[in-house]
């Protein structure tokens, strides 16, 4: 059942998918590790909709239900000062596949000034250490988003320039040692070239460096804006699947 349409000014009503999470749960379900929609209105638990509560996150400082996501669901505000969702758990570390995987996150900057504030801001960040990490967010360069898979110190990174949007946007990254490919996506479409030459990942996920909305529990490099639907799979989703994950938010 789809959500009620909302009419925004002049034009045809737009229909939002208020059960978007079910669409994502059906996306290669056997390989879904975790899905954190961040649609809570109260409490510090960031529920893992994949179902294993051992992989729930823990909010620090976020303002829940601060605005509505594309689907009409609550979305939390990360204040750019000291907020984050710590998604690390022993179970997540067990299930995480450092050689084959997909990570997605929906991001929205608080205002256009965030794109030019010369501050690194992470949407989703997972590391064993500085030489072995995955991140999606923005760089300190004006109007740049960046996504990276770094393993064994080999950094495969895509920079997306010209970002000025103040609307929600989706970043996704896939990695595959078997195919020797890292692919970045913006709004469901591949961005940049397929990157080759993956290094060898070493180390378990860092309890202080596996987060939505920041790089560390210090915290550092905090997102300034809204974040929704962080997801993690143990396989590189296809381009069609990534596009589907994006498009269903509007369905």
């Amino acid at each position: 059942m789809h959500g009620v349409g909302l009419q925004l000014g002049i034009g045809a009503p737009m229909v939002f998918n208020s059960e978007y999470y079910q669409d994502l749960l059906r996306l290669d379900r056997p390989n879904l590790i975790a899905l954190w929609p961040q649609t809570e209105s109260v409490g510090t638990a960031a529920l893992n909709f994949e179902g294993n509560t051992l992989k729930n996150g823990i909010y620090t400082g976020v303002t829940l239900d601060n605005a509505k996501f594309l689907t009409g669901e609550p979305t939390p505000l990360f204040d750019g000062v000291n907020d984050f969702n710590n998604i690390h758990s022993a179970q997540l570390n067990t299930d995480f596949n450092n050689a084959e995987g997909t990570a997605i996150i929906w991001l929205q900057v608080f205002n256009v000034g965030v794109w030019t504030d010369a501050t690194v801001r992470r949407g989703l960040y997972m590391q064993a250490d500085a030489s072995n990490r995955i991140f999606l967010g923005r760089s300190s360069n004006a109007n740049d988003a960046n996504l990276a898979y770094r393993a064994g110190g080999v950094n495969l990174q895509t920079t997306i320039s010209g970002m000025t949007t103040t609307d929600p946007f989706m970043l996704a990254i896939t990695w595959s040692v078997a195919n020797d490919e890292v692919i970045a996506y913006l709004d469901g479409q591949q961005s940049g070239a397929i990157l080759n030459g993956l290094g060898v990942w070493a180390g378990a996920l860092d309890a202080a460096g596996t987060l939505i909305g920041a790089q560390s529990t210090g915290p550092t490099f905090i997102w300034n804006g809204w974040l929704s639907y962080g997801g993690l799979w143990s396989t590189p989703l296809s381009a069609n699947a990534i596009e589907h994950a994006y498009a269903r938010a509007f369905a």
Partner: protein
Amino acid sequence: MSWHGYILLENLSLNNTQRSLLVDGLKTLGPSSSPQPAELNHWRIRLDNDAVIFEAKFNTNNISISAIKNRLGNIFGIDPGDINHATIPGDDTVIAFSYLAIDRIRFTVFGTLSALWNESGDRARGYLLANITEWEIST
């Protein structure tokens, strides 16, 4: 009275033990529970460990000048009345606390206690951007 906002504590000359006592005491402020994580006390420590930004829904009695003097008095084992303070004018409430003519800490209420939460947050974010090398690691 409650106030949800951001405060900054900067250590100017406390030793490690004194600093820890003060910071640990400030960490206990704010509500013991709240449906909103933003209202629960949480903090961010400067890279050199000599400053902390706190955010919570504070009881303003606990972050008043006298409250801070009481904490410093306990830390130094002295009458809080022997702690002096000087207010630095500006868009934030900035107060330097001194003892024996030595500045010990600087305490900032971002946006003052009259600021709304988002206004205090804007001041805190502006402060971080202006002091980014002290608060953010290199990438």
